[in-house]
């Protein structure tokens, strides 16, 4: 049951976002996308940290917002400078997301196996 609260948070957030009358101006869509990507990375990193038992709420929150903001700012700066930092950010966050996902999968699998082994051991013992 412990995972229900975050899922509820996600659902409520999506609902709120879809019901908000505020519309993102078209020029900011690019930066918003990179910010979303950074946020996703943070979230997956947080989940990974939970599974590794190294979770810190302050780090997650600060990382979430600063990563998103910095990614957007970096992309904006790249646009100003004529360098496509946007793609660099996409690349970096993409790699990190996949790494995090892989780690999450890895950890959950090992935990599942451990638990199974423990149950089997209990049954046998």
């Amino acid at each position: 049951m412990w995972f229900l609260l975050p899922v509820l948070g996600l659902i409520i957030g999506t609902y709120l976002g879809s019901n908000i009358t505020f519309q993102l101006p078209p020029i900011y869509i690019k930066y918003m996308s990179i910010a979303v990507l950074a946020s996703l990375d943070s979230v997956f990193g947080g989940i990974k940290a939970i599974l590794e038992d190294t979770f810190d709420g302050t780090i997650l929150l600060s990382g979430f917002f600063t990563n998103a903001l910095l990614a957007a700012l970096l992309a904006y700066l790249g646009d100003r400078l004529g360098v496509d930092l946007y793609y660099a950010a996409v690349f970096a966050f993409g790699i990190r997301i996949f790494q995090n996902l892989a780690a999450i999968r890895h950890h959950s699998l090992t935990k599942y196996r451990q638990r199974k082994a423990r149950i089997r051991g209990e049954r046998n013992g």
Partner: protein
Amino acid sequence: MDKARWHIPITVVLLCLGIMLSLQFQAQTRVASDLTFQRTETLIAMVRSLSEKRQKLALEITDLGNQLRSQMESSRDEKKLLESIYAEREKMRIVNGTTALKGPGLTITIEEHMPIIYTDLLNIINELWNAGAEAISLNEYRITSHSTISVAEDAYHEDGYSIFMTVNHEKLEYPIIIKTIGNPNNLEKGLTLPGGIMDNLALFNAYPEIEKVEALELPAIEKPTSYYFMKEYKPTEKDKEKTTKTTTPQEIINPLKNIAPR
């Protein structure tokens, strides 16, 4: 692992992520449907199809406009036709006497003491028709092509013998008032011309009272005549040929030719 420690932050983070995701999703779908982000080829194709559509619709508009105009014209024609039919019907009703009428004309009053018989009435009415009367009524009976003016005998009268005049098989009560609509001057002249009907009646000491009236009211006939047997007959071409062949006009005109002096 202390659950409360990671619970709240991840929920907050996911809440924010949800908002951002849906916002971004909406914006992206909006962009995808926005024309400024479309490719040139698709834009060209869209313009082409839309202009074709527009042309088609313009054609349809003109088509429908024509239809509307023709419909309106036909309805106007129908209206005209209907109006003329109504006018015709009104005329027919007036002629047939199925409507009460109003107009200038004469009244002719005949008192009981005047020695007048039904043929005099007939003469007066004929004279009125001749003088251009448009409608005539006798007491409260309209005179139409089906009216009858006659004489009848009252078998149950105290004196045993009494005749009275009838109009439309109804007893004509005194004073007899003939109302007629037409040009009052013409009608009066028609009646009072020297040697006319009034002079004739004066020989019998009958002096009907003639009065010009500005606005006369004539009643309608009580029951309109219905026709069962009459049918319109239009001679066809064949019939016409036959008649012209069988009776040559020469034979009809010429019998007197031999008698006439040369």
